[in-house]
């Protein structure tokens, strides 16, 4: 695991030096603007608006980073041929992939944690106090992070066998399809033959169900998130990420570098 750690630490260092964390400035400006604005236009629901806006921003910024940097993790190394010298060391290809994955997840964790802190500061600025139910914001942020890890794994898989442009399209497509996975299982009011319905249901179980990780509605309104859901989502993300990364490792292990 030492090789994985070394690659991961370098991937994190790359993200920091390539100024990926600069997106935090954008987030800070957004939250400051929102805090000033909601105080003027919304009466009584300032907290809800701030939480909703903050969690959406954390999720959207995270998704952009996960897709674009996730695809670049391997493709950039192959394009620039930085991988050549590395793979000539006693490093297995799967160790490289796993290191890259953990490096980006580490970056996203730091980024997401900083944004979550910004969200709490905004809440305190607006209300001059934090509620007990605000602790659930952390749960929502944790689930967003699991979702981002899953997106990174998918981006990594696609970048192992196709061009960066197509990998971005495939990953974004999988994300959108994954948001609709639940709907595919419960299609009503449409006349379809039983075979098609079965196929749709089968596909819905194969797709990563990103809606599982969305607890924003409950958290915005100060309702709790069941512990069972958090455990289930954690297990689901771990298993799904492990399967996707195993697939990526198999594909990458036989990939001819140019």
């Amino acid at each position, binding site marked *: 695991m030492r090789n994985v750690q*070394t690659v991961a630490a370098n991937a994190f260092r790359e993200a920091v030096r390539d100024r990926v964390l600069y997106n935090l400035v954008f987030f800070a400006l957004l939250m400051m603007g929102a805090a000033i604005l909601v105080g003027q236009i919304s009466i009584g629901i300032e907290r809800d608006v701030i939480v909703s806006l903050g969690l959406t921003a954390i999720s959207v910024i995270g998704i952009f980073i996960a897709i674009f940097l996730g695809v670049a993790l391997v493709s950039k190394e192959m394009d620039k041929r930085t991988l050549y010298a590395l*793979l000539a060391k006693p490093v297995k290809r799967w160790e490289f992939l796993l290191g890259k994955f953990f490096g980006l997840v580490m970056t996203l964790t730091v980024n997401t944690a900083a944004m979550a802190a910004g969200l709490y500061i905004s809440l305190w600025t607006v209300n001059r106090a934090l509620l007990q139910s605000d602790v659930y914001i952390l749960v929502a942020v944790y689930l967003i992070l699991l979702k981002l890890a899953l997106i990174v794994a998918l981006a990594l898989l696609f970048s192992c066998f196709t061009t960066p442009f197509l990998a971005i399209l495939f990953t974004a497509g999988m994300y959108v399809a994954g948001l609709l996975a639940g709907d595919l299982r419960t299609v009503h009011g449409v006349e379809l033959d039983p075979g098609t319905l079965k196929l749709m249901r089968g596909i819905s179980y194969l797709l990563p169900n990103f809606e599982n990780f969305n607890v924003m509605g409950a958290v915005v309104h100060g309702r709790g998130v069941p512990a069972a859901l958090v455990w289930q989502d954690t297990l689901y993300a771990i298993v799904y990420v492990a399967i996707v990364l195993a697939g990526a490792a198999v594909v990458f292990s036989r990939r001819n570098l140019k």
Partner: protein
Amino acid sequence: MGRPFSCGVTGCEHAEPPPVDDARWLFKNMGMAQGAIEIENLSKEYPYGFLHLKKKKSLEDLTMRVEDGEVFGFLGPNGAGKSTTIKLLMRLIFPTAGTARILGKSIDDVSMHGSIGYLPEQPYFYDYLTAHEVLDYFARFHNLTAGDRSARVAAMLKKVGLDTAKKIQLRKYSKGMLQRVGLAQAILHDPQVVVLDEPMSGLDPLGRREVRDIILELKRDGRTVLFSTHVLSDAEMLCDRVGVIVGGKLRGIGAPGELVDMKAQGMEILFEVSGAAGNLPLLANATRTGERYRVQLPETELYAALDALKAAGARILSVTQIKPTLEEYFMNLVEADRAQASAVEVSGK
């Protein structure tokens, strides 16, 4: 039945001599000790076309070995298959057929990479790192203690002349400086076998000299070096043996002196003459450079020519034998391959 052929190993005799330029015969029949690099029937095809149905052979049935402790030069024109062979050895690409072993271990065995160093062609490293950081990063993949790692990184930076630039990010480095970083990371862990893909590329004369010195130092330390190059003078100067690859096929392998016919093909005289000797018959065939004349002639006519020059008051500056060079040998192979390729093309039409 003729006299049995001896391959050079004591007590080892064979009924048939080795086919010309066929290292395979030696490899299979000599029963020699394990070579540092052993390549057997290695081939690589690349699919191309819209559906990848067509295939282009980049390397064809390559069999050769590099002995322990020797400096081996891999020569060939662009696209000949040199880098393909090296990438196959480094497992960056996978062979269509054939096998290879380095230090007795299959190239599939990743642990073998702990004993080899590799400099890619036109190396590119993480440009957000400094030279010190990139070497420290690569050193972490070898089983080195923190102290040992630090000492080796410092020593390597000094060795390749980057000691003063070690804290500058690689994005500000020139091509030659990157080549030096590449060389440093290749030999950082004191490998047994060093594979260098075009190590002189992008270097100024001073840099080339330093690389040559490093290769010779590696040889003195008993390391095996395989390097590819276009620069034939480097190969002639450094290599115990060379392999010439053209069109994906190994066309010749051996010591530079064995590959080219070392028998003198004539003599060359370099001389200066005063105005009085301007009507010497020898001058008709001479090439003039400033006040100096250069004339080539058969060895049998040498002494008569020298006597004539002496009589005419010429100042003889040098007399040298004309020997074929590795470059001529190389060019002959390349031209033969091109002629063959165009003949195939014509017959195909």
